């Protein structure tokens, strides 16, 4: 059974339906809400498999189904669905991982009073993400993109009674919104420049040669090609959504949501959206590659941002103590890898890593969720410890995930995908700096993951909660096992010796030999990272929860800086937030007291001056200033009348405005 492009809408429609059901289900209908969500996603998974079959029939083809949405003046706004291997693979991944997370959630959220609401939001999230994947129009993609944002806001703030969760939700929403502004601008510019927002449209789409040639051929401010400028604006959206430097700050805070949400956001859906977006518009990003005279290529920016993010995330992750926060920073780092791969021109490697990462990161988060659930919501690794015994399945699967993330050679999927990225970065002609940054990140990744596992699972329990931890129900361990199997097996789809995935995604892909030296280097680095980790944290597992970290003893200043996440949040709080708050306050003031405030100020000044003068020259000036004050006050009051909630005034204004408009049209020769 294969699915054609015109039936693609079914994939997001199913979870959307489940969301509607969940929204209409009363609180007691837990089974209905969860069942609908899981069934819908399972259905979507089957449909996605069908889509994959359909896409693999001719991988080089972009199957589209376009239709017009509404007429806008002379033009028609058209939307569409796109079926190609990228879409299909992503759909399969999202639905599969999502399905496991949904199942896991039934166990994790068992005690929550708002169980049905949770599944409603989860389904909405999945629907939005799937809609984003199947879109053949930047506009449709943007709509779903924003829906993803909304759903993530709802989910991160799911426990909105916790102030941190509410703040984190707001932070995630607003931070990504900054990037989305860029995306919106890029989208508008693109529409202005090409008159279309469809990706593929029988030669008329924006990702097809005609449009790309036009875009790359024009030059705009600062010598940039238009395609570069648009690409960078679109990249802004990806930076926000995928938590890239400098907009990565929301991602670790998003851990305030329930853990399945973290898994969903950090593994399968939200953060993948940014990488997917860049991969989707890759032809546009790469349109300026052939130009020589331009000051900067869009992809170079992507590569550097990615490399910086990869290193930054890894560095900060080293000094975190919150279980989920470490994983969050590792996600930031891994997303940096993907961006790096995109930037250096190997978008297939990026998608490969995206897929493998989706599985092992989901595994890690769900493992973390399992630990947290078992340990009565204790997330601090200093408080944990010794969980290896009571939680065997969780420990084994978590260890598999760790090894996949760290890139332990040959058996684990992370190794192969990371290898592909390093290989591509090494081959980048522009600069080798990102490659070296990535290598450092490889070491650090192995190191902090070792630290995490050692502290959480080895040694003796360091708190009451950890002592009484026990293995969870099968609804929670089952998905872990499945994900662990995938985390191992998935890597074999894209080894250099059998690059099935690469060939499917990009039929022009050629496997390059001669990466053996590089592979050895990376194996050595991983081993080095693991070794240091073991040396510092494995040999002497911390004894008590309050004992200082070994690294903190050696380099307290650096440790504090890292623990503070290199001061990004404080920096933003001091600059961006202040600026924003200032601007908001300014707008508020402008809005509230356009003239009134100014005049009131004058009145105050007048009054003050009057007081001063009464002291010195009561008889002469007092009366004059009083009169002036009164006059000003009356002026202020009369101006404030403009906005008093007086419906008559508004109606009068409307009527007079109408008169003015008609006069303008009639006298202005409108006829």
């Amino acid at each position: 059974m294969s699915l054609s492009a015109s039936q693609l809408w079914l994939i997001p429609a199913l979870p959307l339906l489940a969301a509607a059901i969940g929204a209409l289900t009363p609180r007691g209908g837990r089974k209905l809400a969860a069942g609908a969500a899981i069934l819908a996603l399972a259905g979507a998974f089957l449909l996605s498999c069908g889509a994959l079959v359909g896409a693999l029939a001719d991988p080089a083809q972009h199957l589209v189904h376009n239709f017009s949405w509404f007429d806008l003046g002379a033009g028609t706004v058209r939307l569409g669905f796109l079926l190609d291997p990228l879409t299909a693979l992503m759909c399969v991944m999202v639905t599969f991982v999502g399905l496991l997370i949904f199942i896991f959630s039934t166990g994790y959220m068992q005690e929550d009073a708002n169980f049905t609401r949770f599944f409603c939001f989860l389904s909405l999230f999945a629907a939005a993400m799937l809609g984003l994947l199947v879109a053949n129009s930047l506009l449709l993609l943007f709509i779903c993109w924003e829906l993803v944002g909304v759903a993530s806001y709802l989910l991160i703030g799911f426990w909105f009674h916790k102030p941190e969760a509410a703040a984190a939700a707001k932070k995630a929403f607003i931070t990504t919104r900054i990037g989305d502004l860029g995306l919106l601008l890029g989208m508008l510019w693109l529409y202005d420049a090409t008159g279309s927002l469809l990706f593929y449209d029988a030669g008329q789409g924006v990702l097809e040669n005609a449009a790309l040639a036009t875009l790359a051929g024009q030059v705009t401010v600062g010598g940039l090609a238009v395609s570069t400028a648009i690409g960078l604006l679109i990249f802004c959206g990806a930076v926000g959504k995928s938590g890239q430097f400098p907009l990565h700050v929301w991602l670790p805070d998003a851990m305030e949501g329930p853990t399945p949400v973290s898994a969903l956001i950090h593994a399968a859906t939200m953060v993948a959206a940014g990488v997917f977006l860049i991969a989707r518009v890759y032809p546009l990003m790469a349109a300026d590659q052939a130009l020589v005279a331009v000051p900067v290529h869009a992809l170079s920016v992507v590569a550097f941002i990615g490399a910086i993010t990869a290193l930054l995330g890894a560095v900060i992750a080293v000094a975190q103590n919150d279980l989920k926060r470490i994983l969050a920073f590792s996600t930031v780092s891994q997303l940096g890898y993907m961006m790096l791969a995109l930037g250096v021109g190997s978008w297939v490697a990026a998608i490969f890593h995206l897929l493998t990462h989706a599985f092992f990161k989901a595994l890690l988060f769900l493992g973390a969720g399992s630990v947290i659930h078992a340990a009565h919501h204790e997330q601090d690794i200093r408080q944990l410890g010794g969980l290896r015994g009571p939680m065997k399945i969780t420990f084994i699967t978590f260890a598999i995930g760790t090894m996949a993330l760290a890139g332990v050679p040959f058996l684990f999927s992370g190794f192969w995908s990371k290898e592909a990225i390093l290989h591509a970065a090494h081959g980048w002609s522009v600069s080798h700096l990102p490659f070296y940054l990535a290598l450092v990140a490889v070491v650090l990744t192995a190191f902090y993951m070792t630290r995490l596992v050692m502290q959480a699972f080895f040694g003796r329990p360091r708190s009451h909660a950890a002592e009484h931890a026990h293995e969870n129900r099968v609804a929670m361990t089952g998905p872990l096992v499945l994900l662990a199997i995938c985390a191992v097996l998935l890597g074999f789809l894209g080894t250099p010796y059998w690059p099935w995935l690469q060939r499917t995604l990009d039929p022009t892909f050629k496997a390059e030999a001669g990466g053996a030296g590089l592979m050895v280097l990376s194996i050595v680095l991983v081993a080095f990272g693991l070794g240091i980790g073991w040396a510092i944290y494995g040999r002497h597992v911390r004894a008590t929860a309050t004992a200082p970290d070994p690294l903190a003893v050696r380099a307290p200043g650096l440790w504090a800086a890292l623990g503070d996440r290199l001061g990004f949040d404080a920096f933003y709080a001091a600059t961006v937030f202040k600026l924003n708050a200032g601007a908001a306050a300014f707008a508020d003031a402008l809005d509230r007291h356009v003239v009134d405030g100014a005049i009131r100020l004058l009145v105050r000044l007048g009054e003050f001056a009057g007081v001063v003068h009464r002291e010195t020259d009561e008889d002469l000036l007092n009366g004059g200033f009083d009169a002036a004050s009164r006059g000003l006050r009356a002026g202020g009051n009369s101006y404030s009348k403009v906005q008093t909630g007086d419906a008559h005034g508004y109606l009068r204004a409307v009527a007079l405005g109408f008169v003015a408009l008609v006069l303008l049209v009639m006298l202005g020769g409108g006829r």
Partner: protein
Amino acid sequence: MTYSPLHLCLLFSSALFCIGLIGALARSNTILVLLGVELMLNAANLNFIAFWRYGPPTAPGTGVIFVIFAIAVAAAEAAVGLALVIAVYRHHRSIRLQDANQLKG
């Protein structure tokens, strides 16, 4: 220049509209303001019928159907509007429009 019936109909509706407008503007009683607005709406309906009757030929009954829907919506509007007036009255003990000038209650 001679005026067709359509002109007269339109002048009629314009005058009615303006009477409604003046009423809504001049009176402070919320019910009367609402009634003025209702008159303005009726004036618009008059136009639909006038154009249906004298205007260029369109799909049969477009104007009539429009007016039917407009009347239905106006009925809904009147019901909700007057319910609001009663609610406001209960709150402020007044139905002067000027007294209901803040959202805060």
